[in-house]
Each structure stands twice: as structure tokens, then as C-alpha cells.
């Protein structure tokens, strides 16, 4: 049975998500967001949604993060919240 | 009563509408004015061509579009509408002649715009006259309001702007704010808005609701300038005199009066009003206006302002007459539309002529002017007689019938009001004429050389004056139409 892992990851997802919003550095936020997406991807694999997980791994954890990083490099890392 | 389906009403309305693009595009003044005349004549001819049928008691109907179930955009030519249409369309010819003289005389700017919107206003007026239901009437009423705005504010100075605002505030404010909801409530109560002799409320018995609706509709048509919704009229006198003449002696204000007539006779119906004793309410409102307006008129020195207040009073005659709900009274009220129109437009023309010739606007400056402009002042005299209601002018008949109406409805207070106000009318008109002619040379303000306004100005006022006199001898046309209008 994989449900416990499932629950654990779910909780972890929430934590990472909050972290991505709390961290005072946009670059860090971007990286944490990547982690968040990857957690999600794991979660969906567990639930049997392999295609979605695959897409999320490539799009969410991959390209989105790169976009974030690129945008942050082009603007500024500074954030007040 | 037979009904003829014919496109004539639509033509009568749209002939001046169709000519507007030509007017707008024509750069040469002569072309423009020629077209204006053609349109005016065509309009009169079309209207006149329908007179015999109407006198035979027929009705000419034409439906443009069935926009809302039970309320189409529809024309119906009946006696009352014909009466009004005849007056307004025939006076358009005279006025356009006069405007040419006036506008050229004063070298007014942007005359093209002036003539275009004048034509529009005329279409709207005839449209109101021929409309078969409240929706159509509202349509043309609004059209008139917006078409006259550029005319009222023609001078485009600060005064024009402020009075233009006042004009819109009163006219459009009331029509959208009061008439529209009233109309919709009527529609939702009865499911129709068609005018008919017995009214649309046949059967319904909500006295309170009907009273409220009646007041909303009578006061809502603020163009009739019943107090307290009157003060736009004097303000609107900043307009060029021909505008004041046609619009504020004939078209606009008479449209208001006409709409109220329609509401009283067509929407509510004489029987209903008699049963619910609502006529008296209107009578008292109207008579109040009559007296107060005449009193204010006494105190005015500006000639046009005095005329304006006299107009306010005279309009309430019309309402009063119909609200008496007695046949004779109603005939009086309806004929007064015509009679007062001819009388009052003469007076305005005279005022304009004086302005053009001497530039004088205030009565106190007009002592002895009769020696300078005898023709004009004689016309003025006739016009004032007609407005006061003395023979030998058409005004006499309408007053006469009004008085008979009060007796028929045995409303003594109203009789007193009528007679009193007639005295007041005399009191604020005759002194002008007297001072104009009979004054000692030293107090005269003009040298005795006769110098009239240009012919374009004088001819029309002579014509209208003559018509007012003629109407004393041949009033039958209007009287018959009025008799037909009250169905007997």
C-alpha cells in the first residue's frame, strides 16, 4: 500500500508551496517552485496519472522553472515578501 | 369610422428628414434655402392632401415596425393630429422665409447646421402630431428634444451653454425620468399603448395608480411648461428669434400641450377622468400656472421674456380647456393650439424684426417705435389682440369656447381665472402698443423716418397677422377638426 507515502508527499507539497511563497528571494522562490512541481509530479505518478506526471515533470518542474529563472535574472531578485 | 392604410403620414414626417443630407452637404446658401422651401411646401401639401379624408371622419394609419407587442411604431392621422400638423407645417414655410431674412440680416454663423436641425425638429413635430400610440409619440418627443438642443444653443456662448443645460435637464430629465417609467407601467398594466377614445385603462379600477400615472404623464411632458416645470422656456429664449418663434411659440411647447391632450383624451379617456374626477386636479394646476405666469409676464421688461411667460400662460389654457372635460371646453382648448400659434408667432416675428432693424430688446426702449416701424407694430397689435382673445382675431373663438366650456362644466372658479387672465394679457400687451404709437415727440426714442426690417422679415409677420384676422371670419376648418377630435 502506498497511501502513507501519498499522505506524506501531500503534506510535503503544502510545505514546499508555502516555502516558495515565503522565501525572501525570487530566485529561491523559483527553485522552490520547481521542487513543488516535482512533488506534484510524484504525487500524480502515485495516483496512476503517468502522462500528467510526465508533463508536469517536463513542463512544470522543467521549463517553467527555467522561465522563472530567466525572468528573475532579467528583472531583480529583490522582494519584500 | 373607416381607416385608410396609406404611406402619406410617413411621407409627411420624413420629407423634411430626407432633405437634411442635402441641406448639410449644400455649401451655397441659396441652394440650401431653396431646398428648405421645397421641403416645407411639400410637407404642407402632403398634410393638406389628407385633410378631406379626415374631415370625412376617416383615419389614415401606417405601421412602420412592430417593435414591441402591442406598441408598434405607427402613425395614425385623426382630427386632432391633423389640426396640429396643419398649423406646424404651414408655419414652417413662413418661418423659413423669416429665418432667411433674420439669419442673413444678422450674419449669423453656421447657418447650415441651423437649417438642418430646423428641418429635423419639424419632422419630429409632425411625427408627434401623427403618432398613433404613446411609444411613437415618445420617440418623436425625444427626437424633438435632441434636435432643438443645437438650435437653442446656436450662439455657443456661455449663456447659450448654461440655458442649453437647463433645457436638457428639464426636457430630457422629465421625459426619461418620469414619462418613460409611467409609460412602461401603463404598458405592463394594460398591454397596449394605442390611443383610443375610451382610453387604454377601460376596466382597470386602481384609482390611486391611475392618479399617479396621470400626474406623472401630465407633468412629465415638461414641454407644456406647466409650473413648476416651466423655467426652461424663458431660458431657451437665448435662441435666435426664428427658433423662439417657431419652436417656443409653436413646435416645442405645442408638442408638449398636444402630448398632454393625447394623454388626457387618448390614454386615460374622458369617461375615466370624469368618473374619477381627475379633470379638476389638472384644472387647478393649469389655472395656477395661468395666473402666475401672466403676473410674472407683467413684470418682464425683455420683450422676448414677456412673450415667453405669456406663452407659458396660454399653454395652460389648452390644458385647462381639455381638462374641463366638457365638449365646448375641449373644442376651445384644441382650437387654441391653432389660434394661439398664429397670434404668438406674429408677436415673436415682430420682436425679431425690431431686433434686426433697431437692435432693441427691451420694452422700455421701444417707446415711439410705432412711428419707425408702423407695419411691424400694427402686426404686433393684431397678434396681441389674438392672444388676448378679442375680435376680430381667431383668438377670440378659442377663448369664447373656453368660457362656454367652463359654464358647461359649471366651473365658476375657472371662468374667473380665464377672464382675469385675459385682463392680465391685455395689461401686459396693450401698453407696449400704446407707447409705440401714442407718445409725445420728446419722449419718443426714434426719429420719425419710417425704416422697417428687411422684407424677408416683414412679409412673414404680415402674413401671419393677416391669417390671425382671417381665422376670425373663417374659423370653421379648425373648429370642425376639433369637433371631430372630441368625436361629435
Amino acid at each position, binding site marked *: 500500500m502506498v497511501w502513507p507515502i501519498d499522505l506524506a508527499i501531500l503534506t510535503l507539497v503544502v510545505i514546499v508551496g508555502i516555502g516558495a511563497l515565503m522565501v525572501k528571494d525570487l530566485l529561491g522562490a523559483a527553485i522552490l517552485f520547481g521542487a513543488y512541481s516535482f512533488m506534484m509530479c510524484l504525487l500524480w505518478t502515485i495516483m496512476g496519472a503517468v502522462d500528467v506526471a510526465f508533463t508536469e515533470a517536463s513542463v512544470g518542474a522543467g521549463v517553467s522553472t527555467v522561465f522563472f529563472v530567466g525572468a528573475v535574472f532579467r528583472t531583480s531578485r529583490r522582494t519584500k515578501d | 369610422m373607416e381607416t385608410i392604410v396609406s404611406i402619406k403620414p410617413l411621407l409627411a414626417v420624413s420629407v423634411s428628414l430626407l432633405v437634411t443630407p442635402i441641406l448639410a452637404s449644400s*455649401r451655397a*446658401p441659396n441652394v440650401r434655402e431653396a431646398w428648405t422651401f421645397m421641403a416645407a411646401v411639400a410637407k404642407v401639401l402632403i398634410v393638406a392632401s389628407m385633410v378631406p379624408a379626415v374631415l370625412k371622419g376617416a383615419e389614415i394609419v401606417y405601421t*412602420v*415596425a*412592430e*417593435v*414591441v*407587442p402591442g406598441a*408598434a*411604431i405607427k402613425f395614425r392621422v385623426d382630427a386632432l393630429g391633423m389640426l396640429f400638423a396643419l398649423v406646424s407645417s404651414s408655419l414652417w414655410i413662413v418661418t423659413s422665409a423669416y429665418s432667411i431674412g433674420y439669419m442673413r440680416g*444678422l*450674419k*449669423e*454663423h*453656421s*447657418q*447650415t447646421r441651423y437649417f438642418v436641425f430646423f428641418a429635423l425638429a419639424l419632422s419630429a413635430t409632425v411625427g408627434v402630431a401623427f403618432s398613433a400610440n404613446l*411609444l411613437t409619440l*415618445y*420617440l418623436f418627443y*425625444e*427626437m424633438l428634444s*435632441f434636435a432643438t*438642443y*443645437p438650435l437653442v*444653443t*446656436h*450662439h*455657443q*456662448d*456661455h449663456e447659450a*451653454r448654461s440655458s*442649453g*443645460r437647463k433645457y*436638457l435637464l428639464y426636457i*430630457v*430629465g422629465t421625459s*426619461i*425620468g418620469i414619462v*418613460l*417609467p409611467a409609460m*412602461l*407601467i401603463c*404598458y*405592463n398594466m394594460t398591454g397596449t399603448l394605442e390611443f383610443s377614445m375610451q382610453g387604454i385603462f377601460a376596466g382597470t379600477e386602481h384609482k390611486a395608480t391611475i392618479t399617479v400615472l396621470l400626474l406623472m404623464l401630465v407633468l412629465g411632458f415638461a414641454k407644456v411648461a406647466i409650473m413648476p416645470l416651466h423655467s426652461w422656456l424663458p431660458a431657451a429664449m437665448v435662441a435666435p428669434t426664428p427658433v423662439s418663434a417657431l419652436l417656443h411659440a409653436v413646435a416645442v411647447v405645442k408638442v408638449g400641450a398636444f402630448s398632454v391632450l393625447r394623454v388626457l383624451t387618448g390614454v386615460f379617456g374622458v369617461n375615466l377622468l370624469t368618473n374619477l374626477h381627475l379633470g379638476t386636479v389638472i384644472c387647478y394646476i393649469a389655472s395656477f400656472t395661468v395666473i402666475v405666469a401672466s403676473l410674472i409676464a407683467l413684470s418682464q421688461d425683455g420683450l422676448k421674456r414677456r412673450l415667453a411667460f405669456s406663452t407659458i400662460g396660454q399653454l395652460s389654457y389648452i390644458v385647462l380647456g381639455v381638462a374641463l372635460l366638457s365638449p365646448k371646453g375641449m373644442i376651445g382648448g384644441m382650437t387654441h393650439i391653432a389660434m394661439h400659434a398664429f397670434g404668438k408667432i406674429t408677436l415673436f416675428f415682430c420682436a425679431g424684426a425690431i431686433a434686426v432693424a433697431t437692435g432693441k430688446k427691451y420694452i422700455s426702449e421701444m417707446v415711439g417705435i410705432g412711428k419707425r416701424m408702423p407695419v411691424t407694430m400694427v402686426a404686433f397689435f393684431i397678434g396681441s389682440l389674438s392672444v388676448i382673445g378679442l375680435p376680430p382675431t381667431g383668438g377670440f373663438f378659442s377663448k369664447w369656447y373656453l368660457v362656454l366650456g367652463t359654464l358647461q362644466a359649471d366651473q365658476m372658479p375657472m371662468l374667473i381665472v380665464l377672464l382675469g387672465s385675459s385682463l392680465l394679457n391685455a395689461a401686459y400687451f396693450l401698453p407696449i402698443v400704446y407707447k409705440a404709437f401714442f407718445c409725445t415727440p420728446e419722449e419718443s426714442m426714434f426719429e420719425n423716418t419710417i425704416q422697417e426690417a428687411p422684407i424677408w422679415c416683414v412679409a412673414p409677420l404680415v402674413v401671419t397677422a393677416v391669417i390671425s384676422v382671417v381665422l376670425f371670419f373663417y374659423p370653421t376648418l379648425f373648429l370642425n377638426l376639433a369637433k371631430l377630435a372630441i368625436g361629435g
Partner: protein
Amino acid sequence: MSLQYPGLIVVVPLLSALVISIAGWVNKRWCFPIAVAGLSVAAYSSVGLLFRVLDEGVIVYKLGGWDPPMGIAYYVDHLNGLVLAVVSVVALLNAIASKNSIEQEFPERIGPFYTLYVLMVTGLLGIVVTGDAFNLYVLLEIAALTGYGLIAMGGGRGPLSALNYLYMGTIGACFYLLGIGYLYIMTGSLNMVDIARILPDLYQSKAVMAAFIICMVGVWLKMAFFPLHAWLPNAYTFAPSASSSLIAPLVTKVMIYVMIRLILTIFTPEFSFNILAVSKPIVWLSVIAIFMGAILALSERNLKKMLTFIIIAEVGYMVGGAWLGNRVGMTGAILHIANDALMTLCVFLAVGNIVYKVKGAEFENLQGLFRKMPFTMGAFVIGAMSMIGVPPTCGFFSKWYLISGAIQAGQYGFMVALLFSSLVNVVLFFRVFEICYYEPFSDHHGHGDHHPEPIDEAPVTMLVPLFIVAAILVLVGLYTGDIVNHIVEFAIPKGLV
């Protein structure tokens, strides 16, 4: 071919958008003709479709040949037949009218601009024509994304307002998606008709109620219904005139259509109005919306921004009319979708011409416009009359139905709000007219027509569509009776009385 109209309506614009984006790299001058061609095919087939619907009733088009609910299907009935025609015609006219202003404002971006423009029209048409709840979401996003791009073209504060619009729009779309998810988890279906078939057993379920509320909130966000309107004015004001005259008439109206579709088709009127007893508060909300829109509009000194606030008030009209819960009110709402789209297009095109000539819609730029651009102002006046609600322009008649509905439903507050906003519109527009009408004051005597200020009008390609729209306003007004009897009557289910 007429059997394929539903397909063509969406596919042809899509293909033409792709072709445009390719052509943009080869030769800019090809973009405009292709766009016009694609849009006119769409307009032609949607009008043809409307007539077919009038003859045959509901038309079902199975994409991929799969029977619904397995595959995605188009359901074209009288309601979206009407909206389709309006949307495609408006888009076409605006495309023709805005040619010059596009070339003036951003000459080197014509290719991508037209791509987005046509894509947006594709999205809107798809939203209207589709019968699949999720498909609607995807198209919603297309319309939204392209819209952000088009608005942000405006430069200045354009990007910022577009970004705010993006946040709000995304929340709205996601709420809609969430609501659909709730419906899906309860019914297991995504096809609107199918959901409607399954739902009646579940009307008591909390999840269905929540689904309805969430969808509504999402749609309201997208249509800028009063408390959620904050994004609209800036977005529409700072957009380039070519975009704003496409977005302002269509987006909010299409969202209104979606709302009505939700009320009437997915959830039956019986659920929306009887089981869920929220009509009264929503109507009151729309009353507030109308008042706020009118009052905020009064405080504006920029013509374009003033109009955006009027749009907010108009949204209030339609939401309120739809939620009056009676047939007349719904008729008014549906009628007003078409009328408002047309009259908004009219005024925005006029504003576009003004901006094209005098570079700005601030009130002080407008002095003496009646002399300078008489034709544009003439059309603008007609549009304004329609917005005020003066017969025989179409604006009056939809208002007529709305007010009648309010009276029948006993919602006099709504009636008062409508009249109030009409009066405020009079004030607003005549304030503009005054400014355009009174030149810098001069003594009026002594100079006749000798030396009038030179007429400096917008090019004819911008004027002709404007005139067409103005004429349509009056014609639609005169044919209101037929439109109601032959189209709107059938668009509303018999259940609603």
C-alpha cells in the same frame, strides 16, 4: 457545405491566424487581407448558421465524428446562433475599421498583432459555439491570453493593467474550471446537455450548489461584474484603440452569454431561480453595479475611460436582467447582449477615429470636434443615443424589456437603477458633446460661413464601417420585434415564464 458551417466558424479563423503568422514573416502587407478573408468567412457562415437554426432548430455538430458525450459536440441553438452572428460581424467590421490605426500605432508588429486578433476572435466564437463545458474553458484561455497580449500593446501603463487583468482573468477561469470539476465529480460528464440531463437528481447536493456558485463567480470575474470589476477600466483604457474596440464590445458580452448558458442550459431555470433562491440579492448587486458604474463614469475626464465605466454599468444591466427570473427580463438581457455589443463597438470605433486624429481622448483634446470631424461625431452621437436609450435606436428597446421585466418581477430598485443610469448617460454624453460643440468661445455675430475651420476627418476606411454600425443600431432597433419573436423567444426554454 452548409452542413459544415459550425466547423468552419471556428476552424477558418484559426487557420487564417496561422497563415497570417507565417505571412507576417514574409510580407506584412498580406496580413490584413488574410485576416479580413478569414473573418468574413466566419461571419458568412455564422449568419448562414443562424438562418439554418431558424429553419431547423438546434444543430448538433460532432467533432471527430464521436457521439457526445464521448467526444466534443457543438450545439447551435437560437441563443448562441444570435451571439455568434453578432460576434463575428463585430469582429469583421472592427478589423476593417482599425486597419489604419494599427498601421499608425505599431507598423512593424502588424503580423503578430493580426495573429492574436484573429486568434482572439476564434476563441470568442468557440466559446459561444461549443457544447462542451471543458472545451469552453480552453477557448476561454485562448481568448484571455490573446487579450492580454492585445491590451499590453498599448505601452505606457498597458502592461501593468494587462498583468492585473491576467491575474483576475486567471482566477476567473480557474474558478470556472473548478466548478466544472465539481460538476464532473458529481455527474461524470462534461457535455452541457448531458450534465443537464443528469443533474436534476442531484439538485439538493451541496457540491452541485457549490459548483454553480463557483462557476458564477468565475464568470463574473471575467465579465467585471461590480465588486469584481477593478481590472476592467485600466485594461480597456490603456489598450490601443484597435484592441479596445474589439475587446470592449465582445469579451464582457460573451461572458454574459456564458452566464446565461449556465443558468438556462447546464442548470435549468428551475434550479437557478427556484431551488437556489439567490435572484433577489444578485439583482440588488447589479443595481449597485449600475449605480457605481454610472457614478464612477461621472468622475472621469477621459472619454475612453468614461466609456469603460459605462460598460461596467451595462454589465449590471444584463446580469440583473438575466437574474430577474422572468421571461421578459431574460429577453431583455439576451437582446442587450447583441445591442450592447453593437453600440459599444460604435462608440469605441468613433473614439478610435478621434484618437487617430487628435492623439488622445482626454476631454480637453475634444474641443471643436463637431467642426473638425463631423461624420465621426455624427456616428458617435447615434451610438450615444443608443447608450442613453433613445428610440428608435436599439438600446432603447432592450432597456424597455429590462424595465418591463423589473416591473413584472416587482424589482423596482432595478427599474430605478436603469432609469438613473440612462439619465447619467445623458449627462455624460452631453458633457462630451458640449466640449466638442463649443469651440473656444468667440462672438457669434459678424462671421458667417465664410471661414469655417477645415474639416479633418479620419480616412474613409475607418468611416464606412462606423457608418455601417450606426445604421445597424437603428435597423436593429426597428426590427426588434422580429428579432424577439423569431430568435429570442426560442432561445429561452419554455420552463421560464
